[in-house]
């Protein structure tokens, strides 16, 4: 019964999405208000229908209803409840249903919070959302139906891949999808603007919060995925430039660029065409990511199935969406009028540089990711493009970006004085020199790249902080006056400072953990002691333990650097269903370093293969990402960006033009 409810509501959602995609568009063209308003109701119905369908599948998982093929293939009655629920999206069909549900959620949010949008714009935005929904629901219903019955129902299910039975990964897809699909809203706004033939600062003001939300979710989603790879795969790495990782990283780069170019449209009425194009590209990269990951073109934990009809469907969908929107762009964009002028050295100029570097970086990543696929398709030769390529192309583009990130906020709009900006950044330069020089004095064999990376961290961190202190006039008057300014500063300004500092912390974590990691690989017998990174690791032995749905060999290490001892319990698990081994690294995260231990096979002579890492400052990679997310969230809560907040007159406080700096 429950599967039939899900099936029925999915079809209902498809029909609703079809009308949502067509009627309001006609209404907007003819100025027919009731047809335009229909979009709101359709978005609500579509959202409710997919919610019921999603609830139906979740119920199937919770009650272990193995008469549903999808549940039987991916769940098991002994699986812990948390993973029964998260298992709903731990497979191809369920994850697409989640995608569709989030799409409907965003559509509904536009209907709900977009009260202040002009009627025709809102109708067109919702209409485009409806059309995307049609594409996805068709895909779900015809190639990936999660409600297919299985008769006779098996006694028990096949279980979920144990690598996915993990809290980090359980919540990685929802966040990533909130980001991917969030970009569908900016895409819909871009298409609607092209149809309307009008882009103005108000449009940018409506687009920014959606971009900001999508960007924040993407940031946290990518960070979670990398964190999972770090502790679950047991290789100690956190980013592999794997095509699947790149698939999520490219939309992030495009979203970051979009976030910044939308500011120029909002504040200066310039870069309009570019921003529209970027919105199209960002969502196209999201779709491409979904295609790469789900079609089975790539081999990874994400490629649940490699059914060629699915790949073909997504490919056609991708061509229609990308080709159609670019065609529309080509037809309509030239008629859009450019806005405010600016000198190359100015806030706008800085943001253009930001966009250039980010989109070029995205392009090099795209090339490296797609090249093996094309080469295979055209010549049958199998190659892979590894980290050396991405490091050689991405880093030289990322470093100038990071350096410019500290300067940009110091530049006023229209025309700026670069020497003045540098003069105000002298403490940041000092910080960079002191850190780089200090490290060199301490360890002269440190590589030049490491020194440079650390200097960039200091420069960006101090530069962002300096800009903030200058804006609130800290130490330049009474503390009370500064506090007042802190309160008066728009939240998006605080958000920018925090997000930029977060990026600096990520640089710190990447540089330090890459440069100063120590590793030990070998066989240890109980009682053996080994020194790794200044810690004595004592192997106490290993014994068998039993979990809810696995058995494991659990090792015990005691690590000490003279202070209180730290216990580490790495496991090698063998799951019951599906029967599969996983490595559970034991990680002791600290602000200064992570201790990381893995236990492997017994050698039959009382010893075990072990791998131990000491990774200085690595946790700052994820903490930095969290700080970036916090900056995004704070910016999102800015009342000027609040969805539906009345358009605010530009108030010029005594700070003059500086008031309108945004993140």
């Amino acid at each position: 019964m429950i599967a039939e409810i899900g099936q029925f509501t999915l079809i209902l959602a498809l029909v609703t999405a079809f009308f949502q995609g067509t009627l309001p568009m006609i209404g907007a063209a003819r100025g027919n208000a009731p047809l335009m308003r229909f979009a709101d109701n359709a978005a609500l119905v579509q959202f409710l229908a997919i919610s019921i369908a999603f609830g139906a599948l979740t119920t199937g998982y919770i009650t272990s209803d193995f008469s549903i093929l999808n549940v039987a293939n991916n769940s098991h009655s002994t699986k812990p409840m948390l993973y029964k629920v998260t298992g709903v999206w731990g497979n191809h069909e369920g994850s697409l249903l989640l995608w569709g549900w989030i799409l409907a959620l965003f559509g509904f949010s536009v209907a709900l919070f977009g009260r202040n949008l002009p009627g025709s714009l809102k109708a067109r935005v919702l209409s485009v959302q409806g059309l995307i929904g049609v594409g996805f629901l068709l895909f779900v219903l015809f190639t990936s139906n999660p409600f297919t019955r299985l008769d006779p129902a098996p006694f028990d299910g096949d279980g979920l891949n144990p690598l996915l039975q993990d809290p980090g990964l359980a919540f990685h897809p929802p966040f990533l999808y909130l980001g991917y699909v969030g970009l569908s809203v900016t895409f819909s706004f871009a298409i609607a603007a092209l149809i309307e033939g009008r882009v103005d600062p108000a449009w940018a003001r409506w687009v920014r919060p959606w971009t900001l939300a999508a960007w924040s979710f993407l940031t946290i989603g990518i960070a979670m995925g990398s964190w999972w790879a770090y502790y679950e795969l047991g290789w100690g790495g956190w980013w592999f430039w794997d095509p699947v990782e790149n698939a999520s990283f490219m939309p992030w780069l495009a979203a970051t660029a979009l976030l910044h170019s939308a500011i120029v449209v909002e504040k200066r009425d310039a870069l309009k065409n570019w921003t529209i194009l970027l919105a199209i590209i960002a969502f196209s990269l999201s779709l491409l990511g979904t295609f790469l990951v789900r079609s089975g073109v790539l081999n990874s934990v994400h490629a649940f199935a490699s059914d060629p009809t699915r790949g073909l469907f997504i490919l056609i969908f991708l061509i229609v969406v990308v080709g159609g929107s670019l065609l529309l762009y080509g037809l309509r964009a030239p008629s859009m009028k450019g806005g405010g002028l600016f000198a190359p050295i100015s806030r706008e100029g800085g943001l253009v540089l930001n966009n250039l570097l980010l989109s070029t970086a995205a392009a090099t990543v795209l090339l490296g990711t797609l090249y093996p696929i094309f080469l295979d398709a055209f010549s049958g030769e199998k190659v892979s493009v590894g980290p050396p390529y991405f490091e050689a192309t991405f880093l030289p583009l990322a470093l100038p970006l990071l350096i410019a990130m500290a300067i940009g906020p110091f530049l006023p709009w229209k025309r700026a004085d670069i020497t003045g900006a540098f003069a105000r950044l002298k403490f940041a330069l000092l910080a960079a020199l002191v850190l780089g020089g200090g490290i060199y004095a301490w360890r002269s064999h440190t590589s030049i790249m490491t020194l440079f990376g650390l200097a960039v961290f200091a420069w960006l961190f101090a530069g962002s902080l300096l800009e903030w202190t200058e804006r609130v006039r800290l130490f330049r008057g009474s503390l009370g006056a500064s506090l007042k300014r802190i309160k008066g500063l728009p939240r998006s300004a605080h958000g920018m400072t925090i997000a930029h500092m977060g990026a600096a912390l990520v640089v710190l974590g990447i540089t330090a953990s890459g440069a100063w990691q120590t590793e030990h690989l070998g066989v240890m017998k109980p009682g053996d002691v080994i020194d790794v990174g200044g810690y004595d690791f004592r192997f106490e032995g290993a014994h068998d333990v039993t979990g809810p749905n696995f058995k494991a060999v659990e090792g015990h290490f005691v690590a000490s650097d003279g202070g209180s001892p730290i216990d580490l319990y790495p496991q090698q698990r063998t799951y019951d269903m599906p029967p599969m081994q996983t490595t559970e690294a034991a990680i002791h995260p600290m602000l200064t370093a992570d201790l990381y231990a893995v236990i492997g096979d017994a050698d039959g002579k009382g010893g075990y293969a072990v791998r131990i890492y000491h990774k200085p400052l690595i946790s700052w990679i994820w903490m930095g990402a969290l700080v970036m997310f916090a900056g995004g969230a704070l910016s999102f809560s800015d009342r000027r960006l609040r969805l539906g907040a009345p358009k605010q007159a530009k108030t010029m406080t005594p700070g003059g033009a500086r008031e309108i700096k945004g993140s």
Partner: protein
Amino acid sequence: MTRKRRRLYMVLAGMCVLGIATALVLTSFRDSLVFFYSPTDLAAKPVAAGRNFRIGGLVKDGSVVKDGVIYHFSVTDLKNEVPVTYKGMLPDLFREGQGVVAEGHLNDSGTFVASNVLAKHDEKYMPPEVAAALKKSGEWRPEASN
């Protein structure tokens, strides 16, 4: 600053960045493309020692010998095989008779020294390169791979 002049500056800046990026891509592509060969490919067209590439096939039954954290095994496509040595911890799903992809180089005695043995995430899964290698050698049996 006229609109035209501004556009010119932006186009110039864009071309500079793109030019640098193209140069970076071209120089790094030559060194960082990692080719994939099956044992039969390798037998037909030997690769110079020291050059980085990937090899894939099945882990030959009975070939795995463990010496502490150093492993010796053979990768086969059921026609030809290549001896492999690897120092480190093998991925969880490494098994005799299962598909495997390894990255590394040949040493002077013709043994493949793997720097990385790629993990499969799922026991049902066969790396597509391995499937293709087996198909090429005529030993592909889809029903046996699951």
